[in-house]
């Protein structure tokens, strides 16, 4: 009943989630979905933080996750505001159409 799980499984899960986030960044076409992929990557990294915190009994690892959440909140607020203003300006959130920064 009191089964155990190796710590590396958590880390593998974290890596898998992170890679999925990267892939999402590459394949999603909507700006807002891409932003979600970023959140996914952040979460994956958080998971590895917590795992290592448990592994080494270091409270600061969890504190770090806490700060990441704060930053993620701030980033979400600003990022979404940017998305709104882009949508206002361009009328779309499809990244392939928001490519004015080229010749």
């Amino acid at each position, binding site marked *: 009943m009191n089964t155990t799980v190796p710590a590396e499984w958590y880390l593998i899960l974290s890596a898998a989630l992170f890679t999925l986030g*990267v892939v999402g*960044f*590459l394949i999603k076409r909507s*700006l807002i979905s*891409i932003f979600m992929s970023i959140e996914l990557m952040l979460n994956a990294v958080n998971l590895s933080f917590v795992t290592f915190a448990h592994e080494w009994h270091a409270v600061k690892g969890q504190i770090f996750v806490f700060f990441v959440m704060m930053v993620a909140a701030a980033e979400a607020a600003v990022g979404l505001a940017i998305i709104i203003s882009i949508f206002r300006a361009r009328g779309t959130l499809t*990244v*392939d159409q*928001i*490519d*004015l*920064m*080229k*010749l």
Partner: protein
Amino acid sequence: MNDPMLFLPLIPLLPFLGFLLNGLLGSRLPKALVSAIALVFPLASFALVARAAWMVHAGLALPVVEHDAPAWIVSGAMHIGFGLALDQLTLVMLLVITGVGFLIHLYSVGYMEHETGYWRYFAYLNLFLFFMTTLVLAANFLLMFVGWEGVGLASYLLIGFYIDRKSAGDAGKKAFVVNRVGDFGFLIAIFLLLGNFGTLNFSEIAAHLAAPAGLSGGTITLICLCLLLGATGKSAQIPLYIWLPDAMEGPTPVSALIHAATMVTAGVYMIARAHALFDLSPTALMVVAVIGAATAFFAATVAMVQTDIKRVLAYSTISQLGYMFLACGVGAYSAAVFHLMTHAFFKALLFLAAGSVIHGLSGEQDMRRMGGLRKEMPVTFWTMTAAVLAISGFFPFAGFFSKDAILAAAFHQGAVGKALWTVGLITALMTSFYMFRLWYLTFMGKSRTESRHAHESPWIMLTPLMILAALSVSGGWVGMDRFGAFLAPVTGTPANAGDAHVELMLSVLAVLVAAAGWFVAHSIYGRSGSQSMTESLASPRRVLENKYWVDELYVACVVRPIEWIARYVLGWIGELVLVRGSAWLMAGIAGLCGEWLRRWQSGNLRSYAAWLAAAAAVLLIFVLAGTLLGVGGFAQTISWAVR
């Protein structure tokens, strides 16, 4: 400074203040105020100089060197300051510059009265005084060079003062460009001095030279020749004299001040100042003497046939400067400075009197259309007479003493000296001839133009003439012996303790030669005026009237090739291949890089993300490759991580 009450920096700075006031505000000030500003500051400068002279007379020990002057360039062991120094030589120069300078300012008030750009003229003139006093007061070569360049600038501005006249602009440019050649030599000399002595201060260089383990003769000779090149440029000697005759395009008072009395003597001053160097190089001294004698002779021949009154004086100036160089070349620096001083008096007077004539004839400069002015312009006539007698070397006028001193010094320099002396004597004959020719053509005989309204000049112009006439008569009475003794601490004592009988004989000979020149001039021009400007000796005359075609020679040998090089070599190879080619190359490289890089800058967010991911992967591989392959450090890395 052992006496803080000399106010040396004020001597140049006061005229500079005048320049600033007139230059910045002059166009808006009333004429009277412009004149007042232009006169007050040089006068104040002169007062300071006179006060310094009086203090010296009262027993002030010279030289006075400012040791606490602000630093200018400090680099490693090199320390160049804005230091000024006053010694006997500087004092004489300052007296001449500010004294004659002030008189010419005064004269200009009358002469330039009707010119547009009145304020501009006086601003430039004050600027000139600023630079000229800086030149002679400077305690090191670099500050002297500042003044040297500055007087060149002022000269350029004033030659080209009549900005609506193309010839004036061309003459200004010619003066400037020719002077550049000389300045180049001066600059090289300064570099050499700095490289060899590590200092540019006159006193320190002199101390170095006095040390027994001095430099080898070759280096000194090179430095001296470079200095000499600079001096020939500024003082209009062979081969760089060609700018001075053209410089007569400027207003006549400018010719008097800059191109006769002061600036062109800067080269003589410089050689006298650097005499410690020249004394160590007999070769350089010989070159100086030969150049001086050749220039004196050559310019005098040309002066004999010129018809423009100012050009006669210009060539005469070149010739007299040649005398000064000759004096320097035979080691008689004090004689050179003596002649410099008397020449400043009588040549300034000649120019001013000529200016008065030109003024009276409303701009006529051709002597063939003058004549008979003795009655109409009595004051000008009599002052001019004094100057002519002085320059010709008649006893007891100023020129006699100084020229006699130079010739005597040359005579005592062995065989070569005898040859130089002969050249000098012949030149004296020619000098006397062309000056009396000028005198006869201008003042004697009858008027050779029908309608003219010659009038005597206003008193503000005549006053300087009379003062200068008095100086031209009496300027030499101090005598070479006392003058030389006064300058001896600076220039050393010339070693011509000649036989008194020989001296007397030489003097008599000089006066006789001058009288002969007068006689020849009288016999040709005295009676019948211009009609007897004979057609005899046609071919030599043609050579002389064309000034030996030197200008043409320079155009053919220097100007044309440079133009050709500029046009074809620089124009095609330089401009097309190098400049444009490199520009195109640069642009092409940049364009190709951009063409290549712009594909990365697609503006597409997802491609950026892909690059980001790829870069992260590459970085991770780079960092972890070793550990992943177990090649090295893996155990350490992991053990560090686990711990």
